[in-house]
């Protein structure tokens, strides 16, 4: 086991994948709790498709992928937030519209420029080689920004998640914090997308928080628990991916599914036990 780990960490790309992956998984799981509870999970999914479109544009322009996709996805995040808040257009349909639209644009651009090749496959399903050296520095920096902002605004994020009307009525600028959540989500999605794949990145947001909600009784416990689950699943997934040469994103998601099922069974057993008593 130790030999395996030593071997893994002797490759610089694996070290990069572990470092960035851990930070992204941590950020995603923290934000995920709020997104899931606010019924915003689909925004994460929509954003990842927009991210795919943005990556395709970046490749076509031969530009740095992160520099192009971050602003595009941030703008899309604000747009999606706006749409889901206005009652005139139904939020879920609008998200489906934007995400499939962005996916289609991305595919068109790719097929007209480089053609459908392994790059596209990597964008969609993720690749452990996704991180270049320059990306790593930017990713680490942005993840730390996300973590610091989340910690500073933790209580406010709790308040707008639990009860936005109350927060608004008692003088908290709920709109601002909703925008903060959307901005942070956009950053996390873009950073995690190339490792996890744009089709799978939203699982990092949804799975850990839903899993820990099975058993945890306080918001803080849910947050901490999902952070731990998220990181452990990422590590195990990366090792599996390395050893069996499986796609990274899918391996991580499979780990998440296993933990989810375990938690769910424990919840069921607990419920049955309590009823018995």
């Amino acid at each position, binding site marked *: 086991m130790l030999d395996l780990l030593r071997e893994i960490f002797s490759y610089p790309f694996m070290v990069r994948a572990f470092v960035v992956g851990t930070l992204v998984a941590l950020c995603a799981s923290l934000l995920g709790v709020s997104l899931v*509870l606010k019924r915003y999970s689909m925004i994460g999914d929509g954003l990842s498709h927009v991210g795919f479109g943005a990556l395709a544009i970046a490749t076509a322009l031969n530009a740095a992928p992160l520099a192009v996709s971050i602003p595009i996805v941030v703008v899309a995040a604000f747009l999606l937030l706006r749409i889901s808040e206005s009652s005139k257009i139904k939020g879920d349909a609008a998200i489906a519209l934007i995400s499939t639209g962005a996916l289609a644009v991305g595919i068109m651009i790719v097929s007209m420029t480089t053609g459908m090749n392994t790059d596209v496959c990597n964008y969609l399903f993720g690749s452990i080689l996704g991180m270049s050296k320059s990306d790593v520095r930017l990713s680490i920096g942005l993840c730390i920004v996300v973590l610091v902002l989340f910690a500073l605004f933790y*209580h406010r994020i*709790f308040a707008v998640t639990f*009860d936005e009307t*109350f927060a608004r*009525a008692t*003088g908290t600028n709920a709109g601002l914090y909703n925008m903060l959540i959307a901005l942070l989500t956009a950053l996390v999605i873009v950073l995690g997308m190339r490792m996890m794949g744009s089709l799978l990145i939203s699982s990092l947001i949804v799975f850990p928080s839903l899993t820990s909600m099975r058993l945890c*009784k*306080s918001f803080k416990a849910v947050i901490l628990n999902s952070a731990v689950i998220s990181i452990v699943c990422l590590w195990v997934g990366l090792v599996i991916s390395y050893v069996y040469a499986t796609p990274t994103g899918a391996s991580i998601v499979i780990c998440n599914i296993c933990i989810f099922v375990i938690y769910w069974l424990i919840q069921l057993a607990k419920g049955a036990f309590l009823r018995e008593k």
Partner: protein
Amino acid sequence: MSLIQCNHLSFAYDGIFAAKDLNFTVNSGDYLCIVGENGAGKSTLMKGLLRLKKPASGSIVYSDGLTAQQIGYLPQQTAVQKDFPASVYEVVLSGCLNQLGILPFYGKAQKQAALHRMEQLGISHLKHKCYRELSGGQQQRVLLARALCATQSLVLLDEPAAGLDPVVTQEMYELVHKINQELGITVIMVSHDIRCAVRYAKTILHLQQEQLFFGTVEAYQNSEVGRKFLGGGTNA
């Protein structure tokens, strides 16, 4: 001393009036109950008083220093909250958020205030319980404690007894009465339970898009509107 004064106040949605030409005052220490049938504009008025909705015309004058940071609010429960994983203490403490200013974290004063409010409402023993596992009445108490954390002077309650069984409803009204009497907090409550309104409130505002009645409970019981609404047998 008047806390809130409304002059010719109207609210509209897309140009259609939901409430029109309201004139009333709320004094410090008052217990005002806003009654009326569904769609009479009660909730709209509530939103207006909370500064969540702008008046179409007229004005609301708040007494000095009554900012949004000093108003407590008990909203109707949303679907999100029913399965929310949060401890009772976390929920109550979140009421203190408006006193933080620009500070990121709660200090000793806020934590003590939260514990104190929980004690006043008799929910101290539930501190570490999960909010979603509580009964309806307990959940309302938690939200009421949170509302009290946000204020020293005025609390607005939106149908505090909605969905509660009769015994718990009674307890809830007693509790609100106690808050008004013993803690000296001004109460504005929206309710369609007219009997309880008459029993506990000091003043009544009866709405039906426009203001049908505003005055003391005694005057309301003797007024034509009041007699009709009370005697009609419906508790609409």
